[in-house]
């Protein structure tokens, strides 16, 4: 009997050992994963006792997220307040108790709550904790130019769409507007208010960041990528001549030029981009082949999620899509290269990606990594981290970039993009008008770069479900935003 009891004692002890091991697993091994889970309400509530860092932007200095102190049951809690106009709602996101987090509030939560692992922060936090003082988070200073950001939202004027402006040489995001926007304060207070937001498009989806997550057919703005691939290949230059019959044969079917079947006749490449002649790009595409085009696209950043500080799941990669998935064909015959080359086929792109295309042209062919957080500032005022410009890839040769920039300038001086002309400023751009599948409505596009001597801004504008062309609708929006940015850099 005693042997059996001894064994039973062993079993009983082992059961307790298992419990100790399991506790260790959850509290040491898996604790980080648990803390990172979006539905971790305890973590969320516990973080309300931290004086979360502010989110700021410049020109003029604006507070995009700050705290409101409230005493609840003897504890001081810090609740988030945002400007009610939702001016940068999609970049900043929200931090709530009820609905987890989004935007930078989510992806930079560690810095904002001083739980990042940098030594100085760890020391500060531990000291505060030992003293029983409130832990103070770090502030984020964004690269956004608030005057231009406001101009962009005003110019979008309630229409659905997005504006993204980048500084080509550094990748700084100067404007990232998504319309319709929303008041982040309602997420906690009155979530139903979001469903009452009205906008002339379906779905209205005010929460999602159209600038980085909205996928649109690029229309003719994609011709800039095709032109870059064409000139880079060395087989064409701006003076190359083409015969335009007014249409292009694709699989035995004719695809007409936009809104006219009048042939342009014998034209050079410059003129083809200036007037956005589909047949020319169609033939280039057929000669280059789809795979070569995709190769060129990837150098611009297509086919991968563009880098940015916002959460990964709020950004989408651009490229060909099939059945809702990114489609990377293996043979040329999988894709209709002719229509692909002038922006049709199953191409879907984000405004951010198209802004990167314009920025590459403006920056001698080099794509910089876009970034929206300029620096992170510790509670004592010291700079904890400063974002340095970083090269993403070389999209084309410098000569190609300067030739292409010249062609894009022509399109604004006297082509499809004349609505973006500005006195004293060099502007190069490309319009796009993509059919949406719904009869009579288009996505109106304009991508451009501009500057007083050399290009200082690259921009992409898209307006959803419009009855008009990119040149008529999107180019004027771009002009207003560019003016807001350039007016300032000229003064400073």
């Amino acid at each position, binding site marked *: 009997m005693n042997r059996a009891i001894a064994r039973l004692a062993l079993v009983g002890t082992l059961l307790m050992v298992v*419990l100790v091991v399991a506790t260790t697993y959850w509290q040491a091994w898996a604790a980080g994963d648990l803390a990172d889970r979006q539905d971790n309400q305890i973590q969320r509530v516990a973080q309300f006792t931290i004086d979360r860092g502010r989110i700021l932007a410049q020109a003029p200095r604006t507070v995009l997220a700050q705290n409101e102190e409230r005493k609840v049951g003897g504890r001081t809690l810090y609740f988030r307040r945002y400007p009610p106009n939702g001016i940068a709602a999609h970049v900043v996101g929200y931090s709530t108790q009820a609905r987890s987090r989004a935007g930078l509030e989510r992806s930079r939560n560690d810095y904002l709550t001083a739980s990042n692992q940098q030594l100085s922060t760890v020391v500060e936090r531990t000291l505060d904790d030992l003293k029983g003082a409130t832990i103070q988070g770090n502030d984020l200073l964004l690269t956004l130019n608030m005057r231009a950001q406001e101009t962009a939202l005003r110019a979008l004027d309630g229409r659905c769409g997005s504006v993204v402006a980048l500084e080509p040489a550094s990748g700084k995001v100067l404007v990232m507007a998504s319309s319709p926007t929303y008041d982040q304060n309602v997420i906690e207070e009155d979530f139903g208010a979001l469903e009452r937001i009205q906008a002339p498009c379906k779905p209205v989806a005010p929460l999602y960041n159209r600038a980085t997550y909205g996928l649109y057919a690029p229309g003719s703005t994609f011709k800039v990528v095709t032109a870059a691939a064409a000139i880079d290949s060395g087989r064409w230059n701006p003076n190359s001549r083409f015969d335009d019959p007014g249409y292009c044969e694709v699989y035995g079917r004719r695809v007409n030029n936009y809104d006219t079947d009048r042939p342009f006749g014998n034209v050079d490449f410059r003129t083809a981009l200036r007037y956005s002649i589909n047949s020319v790009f169609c033939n280039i595409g057929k000669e280059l082949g789809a795979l070569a085009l995709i190769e060129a696209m990837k150098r611009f950043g297509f086919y991968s999620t563009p880098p940015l500080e916002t959460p990964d799941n709020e950004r989408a990669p651009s490229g060909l899509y099939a059945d809702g998935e990114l489609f990377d064909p293996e043979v040329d015959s999988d894709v209709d290269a002719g229509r692909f080359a002038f922006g049709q086929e199953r191409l879907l792109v984000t405004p951010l990606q198209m802004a990167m295309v314009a920025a590459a042209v403006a920056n001698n062919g080099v794509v910089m990594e876009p970034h929206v957080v300029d620096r992170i500032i510790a509670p004592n005022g010291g700079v904890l981290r400063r974002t340095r410009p970083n090269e993403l890839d070389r999209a084309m040769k410098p000569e190609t970039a300067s030739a292409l920039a010249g062609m894009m300038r022509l399109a604004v001086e006297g082509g499809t993009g004349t609505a973006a002309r500005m006195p004293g400023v060099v502007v190069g751009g490309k319009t796009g008008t993509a059919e949406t599948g719904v009869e009579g409505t288009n996505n109106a596009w304009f991508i451009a770069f501009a500057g007083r001597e050399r290009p200082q801004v690259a921009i992409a504008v898209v307006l959803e479900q419009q009855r008009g062309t990119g040149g008529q609708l999107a180019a004027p929006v771009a002009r207003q935003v560019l003016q807001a940015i350039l007016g300032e850099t000229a003064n400073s």
Partner: protein
Amino acid sequence: MVARRTVPFADPYLLPMAALLSAIGVTTIYRLNPDDAFRQSLWIVIGVALFALTLVALRHDYRVVENYKYLFGLAAILLLALPALPVLGQTVNGARLWVKIGSFQFQPGELAKIFLIVFLAGYLRDKREVLAQGRIKDFGPLFLIWGAAMLVLVQTNDLGSALLQFGIFLAMLYVATGRAAFVAAGATLFVVGAAAVYQFVDHVQQRVTIWLQPWTSEPVPCAQTGELALRQDCGSFQLVKSLYSIGNGGFGGTGLGKGTFTTTAGDPIIPFLNTDFIYSAIAQELGLIGAAALLLVFMLFVARGMRVALQADDGFSKLLAAGLTFGFALQTFIIVGGVLRVIPLTGITLPFVSYGGSSVVANFVLLAGLLLVSNRANAPR
């Protein structure tokens, strides 16, 4: 005092450890809900009184209870069946485990557990030789009483207690007969039975699914609301939130009184925090260090209890002490293991620590039993 008088030779560690566990319990409950802590202290007083009463009543020779083993078996079943009675029974949190007389509420299952152990100890000592030969006939009364107990438990949806009783039964059978084959057969039966129950009882299926996949990334049908929801927002929200609580404790804990158990509006995040989930509250505030220390106290208690069983010189005492101690260990494992997602979660109390009068009282009686056995074993003669 009473213990000194009545059981002077008993193990000197068991009582202080029980006191320590009760103190940790009351402290934690006070932090969570001061009113409950007051009631808990009252129950501890009653528990200690019953503990003293048991010691005094059985101070000469506790083995008299062996003569009434069938009575204990029957009483256990009666106690278990009480809540199922129409007037007395109370359904709390989906399980019909409570008896209410006036304003007095009691969960008879806790005492029934001890009665069953007494019955098993008496019966097994009597029949251990014949049982070891494996004649089916001799198992008759055993299966009858024990089977009835299991039936009642399954009927009342008290899966945690059913699992506990089953474990105690197998352990005591093993100690009595020394035949591992019985345990293997029992375990097989358990697997078959569990599989059958899993097939036919929704409640059990849910528990197992929650255990295997507490988190889903896609909405799944939610049994409570009938709508689609992520499982962590629906069936498994208790378990998941409790794990978050444990995880938030980390190595050193948040410190007593500084843990997060309520929303910013003051609503509780984890339900049943001071009963089923008291371990996750302790683990958050005291951290891995505190939780491990608590478990070590439990482990020591089990070790001392088993030592008592080893020292006892008659079969009944050995079986009684081993049964009581193993029951204690298994109960701890079932609830803490459930909270830690080692096994599917079934709600029972953490001995001495959880809030709950019946549990506290029953555990003090259990302690009295162990001390009595220990006293007799160590007494000089």
